[in-house]
């Protein structure tokens, strides 16, 4: 129950950044337009590239913009704060609290993601649907599967960012690693280009890496590139990466907390 309160608090906290949210919506929409036009040019040259038709490709663009903040595709997403607490040593206080560190931050991240999905996801998607012909599902069931897939994607994204933040226990200043992991996420999640468009072996490898669970799978569910058995395989793929990475996070966490030395003063 504690963790529900943490999630709700985090949701409310991000809800207070109203101007920042509006500014973010504006940016997501501008980038959505730019990428959408380049994809139109690309799919004009090569129709059905990667198995998408143009309407599916355009829906992919706007899904990516909607999930950019939600799934923290560029990294960060509040966990830079954990990283900062580790660097300054405030983490010692957190470890005394009667709450589990990983679950605490997971709850906070889910609250953040929920607000971002509503605050920064819905409006760009609606603008995109008005400006371009998007392949969006008509039945509520597919939308439900999409939301479930987004939740799993956020879990995987959190698990990855949590590992990056914990690395600060060893690196002290983890900003460089955070940047590189954010880039890996941008590239291998399909944000830069849908993974199905990647040529040959690169595409096949990219589709089994954990980042594919963050954007590529949810987007495929929404644009109708995954249905029936493929849909279930996608969800299982996401859940498996989520469980594996969260477990790894626990291992690293226990190694890291054994390392903390608190200086009295």
């Amino acid at each position, binding site marked *: 129950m504690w963790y529900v309160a943490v999630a709700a608090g985090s949701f409310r906290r991000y809800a207070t*950044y*109203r*101007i*920042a949210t*509006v*500014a*973010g919506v*504006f*940016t997501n929409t*501008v*980038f959505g*337009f*730019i*990428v959408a*036009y*380049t994809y*139109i*040019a*690309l799919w004009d*040259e*090569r129709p059905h*590239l990667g198995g998408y038709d143009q309407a599916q490709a355009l829906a992919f663009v706007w899904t990516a913009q909607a999930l950019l903040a939600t799934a923290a595709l560029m990294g960060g997403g509040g966990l830079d704060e954990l990283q900062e607490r580790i660097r300054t040593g405030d983490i010692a206080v957190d470890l005394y609290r009667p709450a589990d560190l990983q679950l605490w931050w997971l709850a906070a991240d889910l609250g953040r993601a929920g607000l971002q999905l509503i605050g920064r996801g819905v409006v760009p998607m609606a603008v995109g649907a008005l400006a371009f012909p998007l392949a969006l599902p008509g039945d509520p069931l597919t939308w439900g599967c999409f939301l479930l897939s987004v939740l799993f994607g956020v879990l995987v994204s959190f698990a990855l960012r949590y590992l990056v933040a914990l690395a600060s226990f060893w*690196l*002290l*200043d*983890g*900003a*460089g*690693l955070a*940047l*590189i992991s954010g*880039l890996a996420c*941008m*590239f291998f999640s399909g944000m*830069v*280009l849908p993974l199905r*468009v*990647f*040529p040959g072996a690169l595409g096949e490898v990219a589709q089994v890496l954990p980042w594919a669970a963050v954007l590529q799978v949810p987007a495929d569910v929404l644009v109708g590139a995954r249905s029936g058995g493929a849909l279930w395989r996608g969800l299982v793929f996401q859940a498996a990466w989520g469980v594996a990475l969260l477990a790894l996070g626990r291992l690293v966490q226990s190694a890291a907390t054994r390392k903390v030395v608190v200086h009295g003063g």
Partner: protein
Amino acid sequence: MWVRSALAYRTSFVMMAVGNFAANGLDFVAIMLMFSRIDALGGFSLPEVAFLYGTSGVSLGLADLLLGSVEGLGRRVRDGTLDTLLLRPVPVFAQIAADRFALRRLGRITQAVLVLGWSLPLLPVDWTVGRVLMVPLMVVCGAAIFAAVFTAGAAFQFWAQDAAEVQNSFTYGGNAMLQYPPTVFARELVRGVTFLVPLAFVNWLPALRLLGHPDPLGLPGWVDFMGPVVAALMCAGAGLAWRLGLRAYRSTGS
């Protein structure tokens, strides 16, 4: 000082520099992946797109290196630390620009210069002295235009303290757009970045002239050479906006 402090965490600095280099490279990797499936985008070949990418990237990189820090102004207005800067006998603008000066931003310029250098010999251009000189002139004017956008965006934050992201859509968003040929975009969008926020003068218009592509808006030919004038006007406007913003500033009192 900021350079030395960044170098203190050496592993992180190296990762930051590599990351910055790769961050901008990522866009180009996407372009190359696209061209692994196609021969031309909007009627432009890969070297031509690389030329657009390189010129825009170097311009933005220069502006970002000098003035990129100004986007932190909103934070300073929010937490009240701007007041400290007002007390010092150095122009606030210079202090803000030097604040957290980040050498790692060289990564962006290096990467863009490499792409630009790679594209130049592959372009179907009959190089004359005038055409050769056009390239550095383009880059410098482009940097001035982006610098004006950075400054105007920072001035806007005196009023909207939380809206640093709006600035990003014009600088990084503009850069993302200028990497692709104007033929890719809807005509209204091209009009917007020509007449409203004249980013088209950073590279589109001079590059179209250089590469011999027709201008999608059908503007008279002399417009292609207006880059320096546009840059000067924009810098003057941005300077004015900065003064107005600074005068309108009210301390949070915290």
